[in-house]
């Protein structure tokens, strides 16, 4: 198969590689370079300033706020989402009434649950964010009127307008929109674990919770770990940008008193609102480092002997 091989390879790779290099790789390299300049983005002239942007960043209070929020997202969101999803998936697969001849059984209607849980995954995060912005509305939103309906008329939080609550409200929306995906993912993994493992464990007197921690979780570990990383990258990146930018308007975006600002939104504001493109790329580099550190930590902590079955 040597005839014309290299001509073919070049011909097939040229277009995708050129497009990818121009719109993805080159901007990435440029942005690291720009973080050492005083480029405004508005005029083509700029000069090198060394580490000035970086030292400015370390003294920037808003940067530290968004850093702290993004870090919270990366730690809390995977924990809650993956935890809830594992719980639901286990209920779906093991929570059913036992049938004859099977040690464990899925609940009746498990495919119905899976269909419903997956709904938010197919919707745009922008639509989800808008929807919840209205649900959180303190005067006429769905949530506060439910509270009124059950006799909690005195408890009418300002939700997104309250600096103490806004960040939690935003995180709930991200959990709501992603749990279903992981339920379906983990559920598929659990279904492929041979039933005899559970039977043997139950015969030995183990209860369901022991079987979860001793059988299900270890055998599902690879999937859980990649789900963890996937969720963390999502919580640090575009998804958190969308919910915060859409839901918490505030005078400057990012919630009352910057209470919900996250790193990607701060990059966006600096570059496209304040005309500080170079400084924006510096914050972007910080976000890149956080993302890589997150992935490295999860891989390191999650390293286990791989179980084959």
């Amino acid at each position: 198969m040597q005839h014309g091989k290299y001509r073919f390879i070049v011909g097939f790779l040229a277009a995708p590689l050129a497009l990818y290099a121009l719109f993805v790789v080159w901007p990435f390299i440029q942005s690291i370079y720009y973080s050492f300049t005083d480029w405004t983005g508005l005029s083509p002239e700029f000069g090198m300033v060394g580490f000035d942007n970086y030292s400015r960043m370390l003294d920037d209070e808003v940067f530290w706020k968004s850093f702290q929020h993004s870090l919270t997202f990366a730690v809390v969101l995977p924990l809650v989402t993956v935890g809830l999803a594992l719980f639901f998936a286990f209920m779906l697969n093991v929570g059913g009434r036992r049938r004859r001849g099977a040690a464990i059984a899925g609940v009746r209607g498990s495919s119905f649950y899976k269909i419903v849980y997956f709904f938010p995954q197919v919707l745009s995060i922008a639509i989800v964010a808008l929807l919840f912005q209205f649900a959180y509305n303190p005067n006429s939103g769905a949530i506060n009127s439910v509270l009124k309906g059950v006799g909690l008329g005195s408890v009418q939080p300002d939700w997104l307008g309250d600096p103490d609550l806004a960040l939690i409200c935003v995180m709930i929306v991200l959990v709501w929109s992603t749990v279903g995906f992981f339920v379906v993912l983990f559920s598929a993994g659990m279904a492929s674990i041979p039933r005899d493992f559970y039977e043997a464990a139950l015969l030995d007197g183990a209860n369901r919770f022991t079987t979860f921690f001793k059988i299900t979780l270890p055998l599902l570990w690879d999937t859980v770990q990649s789900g963890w990383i996937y969720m963390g990258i999502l919580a640090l990146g575009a998804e958190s940008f969308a919910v915060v930018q859409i839901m918490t308007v505030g005078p400057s975006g990012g919630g009352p008193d910057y209470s919900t600002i996250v790193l990607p939104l701060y990059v966006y504001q600096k570059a496209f609102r304040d005309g500080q493109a170079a400084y924006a790329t510096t914050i972007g580099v910080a976000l890149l480092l956080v993302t890589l550190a997150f992935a490295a930590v999860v891989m390191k902590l999650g390293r286990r002997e791989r179980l084959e079955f």
Partner: protein
Amino acid sequence: MKTTDTAPTGVETPGSPGGSGPVVTKATVATPRKRSKSEGATLNVFSHGVLIIWAIMVVMPLLWAVMTSFKTDKAIFTSPWALPDKLHFENWSRAWTEAHMSDYFLNTILVVGGSLFGTLLLGSMAAYVLARFDFPGNRFIYFLFIGGMSFPIILALVPLFYVMQNMALLNTLHGLILVYIAYSLPFTVFFLTAFFRTLPSSVAEAAFVDGASHTRTFFQVMLPMAKPGLISVGIFNFLGQWNQYLLPTVLNTEPEKKVLSQGLVQLAVSQGYKGDWSGLFAGLVMAMLPVLAAYIIFQRQVVAGLTAGAVK
């Protein structure tokens, strides 16, 4: 490893589906069965309870939006959970025409149509070459593509904005298509490379021996064989591109060029001044329903397409 050891064959036979029959089952495992029977019933009620609560939490906001889209503005504010007094379809027509939902739909269809085709074509070409040919730099190019999956896109967007500006691609639909393709390539190449590796090489060799060129072998033999993979990754990219918010927000800011997701956000801001909330809800539901309907119809394929990448 250790788990397999705890399942000796003697225990395995009675309970397993392929075992020797119900009579033996009852006799041998009577004691543990009985004890856990009541446990099973409680667990069943508990798990149904928990699962139903979450199902309600998922569905309620969506139903609430549908309901609200048929109400008058006054009813939305005074009684958010009450049923509409009658179905106010005029909200929907107002959203479709006056609020430019029709334009947003058209723009989205054009952009997603173009970029989906481009993504699948370019992605499969690159993946095929990377999966089946040995050449210097193969691994480097592969990891260059894969690396794009874990990098925060926002970092590249600042310079990209100016790259697009210099090439006069900013605020154009074809510019957006090119960017969508470029940012969809990492996952597409990753997924399809793995897929092409699983295909048997004998068919391609036979076609080649019969005198087909590499290009012809690819388009007439390999691509048809890769159809299941193309469908999976196609659904993944379709949803990702249809729902895309970050890229158009930065690169496509002209009002009449907006795509669905950013158009709705724009609508929310402008309707906030006009006070036309019912129209906005109609727009939201209008954007939501086609995707949900398509998901319910192609449920199996969509789930397979979206989870395929994470399992690999």
